[in-house]
């Protein structure tokens, strides 16, 4: 199996990705995550203005197989949510890194980005779990 994992973003052990642009960031779930879940049928998103700590559950996704929590990679304040994935959850399966972003945040703690994996590390991590 091979999963897409763009170079310009960082990854968590719980299979979220984060694209950092100075003080703000965009967050979603990875290609590996959507592949493991299979067809996603439902998404629950937070509200703009919600504050979360790193590892807090900020969203939930449901597939025909399972329900999964989506965790914050870093502390942050929700500034935008992508409502289009509520209407078309299948976007998460087809385009997890572009159209199917979940939220945008203001990063509260830049230090925490050092704990995240780069693309190469993440792919190794995925392979180690699927052998």
């Amino acid at each position: 199996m091979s999963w897409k994992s763009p170079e310009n973003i960082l990854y968590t052990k719980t299979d979220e990705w984060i694209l950092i642009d100075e003080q703000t960031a965009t967050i979603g779930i990875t290609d590996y995550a959507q592949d493991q879940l299979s067809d996603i049928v439902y998404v629950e998103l937070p509200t703009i203005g919600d504050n979360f700590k790193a590892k807090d559950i900020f969203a939930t996704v449901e597939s025909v197989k399972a329900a999964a929590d989506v965790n914050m990679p870093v502390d942050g304040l929700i500034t935008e949510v992508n409502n289009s994935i509520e209407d078309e959850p299948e976007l998460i399966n087809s385009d997890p890194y572009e159209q199917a972003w979940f939220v945008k945040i203001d990063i509260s703690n830049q230090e925490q980005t050092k704990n995240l994996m780069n693309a190469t590390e993440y792919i190794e991590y995925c392979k180690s779990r699927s052998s």
Partner: protein
Amino acid sequence: MKNSEPTIYDISSPGRKGVNLPIPDVPIEDIPDDLLRKDLNLPELTQLDVIRHFQQLSQLNHSIDSGFYPLGSCTMKYNPRINEDAARMPGFLHSHPLQDINTIQGNLALMYELQELLKEIGGFKGVTLQPAAGAHGELTGIMMMRDYHLSRGDTARNKILIPDSAHGTNPASTTMSGLEVIEIPSDSRGNVDLDILKSKCGDDVVGLMITNPNTLGLFEEQIKEVVKIIHDCGGLIYGDGANMNALTGILRPGDIGFDVMHYNLHKTFSTPHGGGGPGSGPVGVSEKLVDFLPAPIITIIEEGDEDNPPLFGFTTPKHTIGRIKAFNGQFGVLVRAYTYIRIHGSSGLRSNSEHAVLNANYLRSKIEKTYNLPYKRACLHEFVVEGCWQEAPNIHALDISKRLMDFGFHPPTNYFPLIVREALMIEPTETESKETLDKFADVLLQIADEAKTDPQVLIEAPHNTPNARLDEVQAARQLVLCCRPAYLPEPEPMQT
């Protein structure tokens, strides 16, 4: 099989009637026009049409009465017919919960004795029969645990620890109680990870919800230590009794420190379940929680003597969390569970658990060389294998399950617990013969072989049902459950 059956609307014929009303002996008054609904569009059929329709549908069904059902007690084990005889005794069948207690002493005596039997089986000090099912029992238990802490002025506790192998109802019950869920990962043997458990313990913990054996079918090997860790931080232990079919008559959860546990009468105690039911989830509690039980509890309000039986009635525990269900639970189901316990006795209940465990291990040993067993241990009443192979990249657990239907077997639980890839959870229960288990194992081995040599036969399965694969994705995304006649316009898609 393969005969499909049209919907009842499709066989409707305008003006066809199933009833003849007698000539009325009072003047006929037409219902005023403005009170008549014209949008009901009920199907119009004769009585025989209706009977044939539903008879045909019932023939398309699979049940434990028609074939092996490896969902096990988790869904429903065999319901002995004597349970039905007892539940249909006229005194039970025709009673009403609002009757004066003097006229339903037999019912109350049965409920009182069932409370006592469940206390004995679980090792608990008190039992409520009220909860309507397992998850309702969980909510009841968590509410009692919360009130226990609050009554002691211990108001900072708001977290419930739950292993990642838990039933999904555990976090749901916790959230409904307004408490926060903290997930505890499993270790490499499938047990609760003790180091992580310790790190999450503190004076903010209400308690731990634990299933033993857990949903991997594995006995928590360090259960005594787990109980001690939680008790040492002031928390309570909630036992999810869904898997009691492995332990009944062998281990009493109350004896090893469980403070509260629900029993699923519709699992362990052989009462009907899904699609028929209703379920029933009595809850047992330790000394600490007896005063918090839901009200009322069945009790002896006047002791009997040589000539007179005792008088049974109701009592309200001192710090009760209140009533959690109308009346006193699912009475007909309580009669069935009581019957099951009494016909087996303590040695019979133990023997059932032993056979449930033996059957599961027999099946496990027959297939574990072919289906990967992620936690390589002897199991209790069920076990979980992976339904996938590197040599068969396009085959998933779902395909194996669908192929099983071709051989007359109901599929096992798929994709649960979540911590096992392509999980197939198999629970044969105590009632299956060696011949049935052998046949099932042979079919599983054949399917594994087909997965690698002829995967298409799995992907296209089932071959003998009216519909092969339903569109589960669309069904989940578009929640339109309404069946309507073809001549009516399409419904608006539901807004979520």
